[in-house]
């Protein structure tokens, strides 16, 4: 599954996310910033898990579960599209 950050989303270095289309804003931590950067780069979920496991002190099963939970939050707040999805 490939994720795409919506065009209207701006992410700052400090982890502040702003959706210019809706006015919603969010904050995330350092790990979240890394995940969002990897999404921006067009990485697959497997690649994101690989990166996080290599750079943070976590095991693959836990990491994948946490990343999928994070991604489900991104979807819930309409911040990302999955491939082929074009809702605003």
């Amino acid at each position, binding site marked *: 599954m490939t994720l795409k950050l919506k065009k209207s989303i701006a992410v700052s270095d400090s982890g502040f996310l702003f959706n210019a289309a*809706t006015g919603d804003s969010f904050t995330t931590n350092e790990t979240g910033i890394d995940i969002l950067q990897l999404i921006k780069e067009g990485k697959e979920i497997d690649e994101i898990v690989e990166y996080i496991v290599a750079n943070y002190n976590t095991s693959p099963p836990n990491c994948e579960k946490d990343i999928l939970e994070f991604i489900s939050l991104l979807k819930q707040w309409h911040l990302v599209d999955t491939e082929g999805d074009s809702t*605003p």
Partner: protein
Amino acid sequence: MTQEPLTIAVTGLNATDNPGSGVPVIRALRESERFRNARIIGLAYEHLEPGIYMHDLVDKTYTIPYPSLGQESLVARLQYIHQHEHLNVVVPNYDAELPSFIHLKSRLEALGIASLMPSIEQFEQRSKHNLPKLCKDLGLHTPQSEVVSTLAELRHALSLTGYPAMIKGKFYEAYIARSYEEALNHFYKLSAKWGIPVIVQQYIQGTEVNVTALGDGKGQLIGAVPSRKTYITPMGKGWAGVVIDDEELMEATRRIVEGTQWPGGLEIEMLRDVRHDRLYLIEINPRFPAWVYLAVSCGQNHPEALVRMALGEEVPPFTHYDRGKMFIRHSWDMICPLDEFERISTRGEL
């Protein structure tokens, strides 16, 4: 062309928890290149409208009679003020006073007082009870609305909209009703305060988005800045808001201004139903909103453009607004000498 410095009269000085747009309009004029040295005359209905006491913004304030006292009493008062102040432009900022000012437009023009306001037909076209027809003509969605003046009509309207329903006053205020008893209570309260009809509207769950806009009266949109309220008071007033980027909302605004040939300021209130991805037009307010200064901060000084157009100047449309701006209101206790309150109360001037 009128010689500078100009004298501009502005209403809506009630910078309260239910704010009018007069103070932000004056702030915008004060910050404009063109009108920074203008003499600003406040026109107030109540002695405790905070703008009366903001002497860095308002040079002098006169009380004016409520619209319920009739146009003749208003024109007599404006003539008196004009004799002393030589007004060049008047900018009314309340929905409820607009019909009086519109009816007096040509008489004010004969005195040399310019304005930019909709006609009575345009004012009525966007009124709550005519909104469904306007939306149909413009191809916009709006919640089902029923105009009610009697209890039988209220009951019938609620049978069509179901619960919850929005019960809205003719000019201002809206309440949600979850039962007939609640609706009845709101109906009595709103009809006593604003008169009949009262509007019963289908409840749509969604995010409210708004646009402050300006039309030139020839169908051209001169400026528009969309925002979303990010903090809403218990009275339903936006206390913070952020500029957004919503092309569909801007397109709806263009359609409204073009379709109505709207002259002057307006605020468009819409609801985005996220589940069905649909925009509903809720209301068109016939004047600038109290958050109009947000547009100024984004590079579109709508009040300045309005006054320039009122004076007959050609104003090119704004083509850009800065994103990444938000507003937050705050309360601030002004300390005023009691004799100022005495003067405005007894002489009607300060």
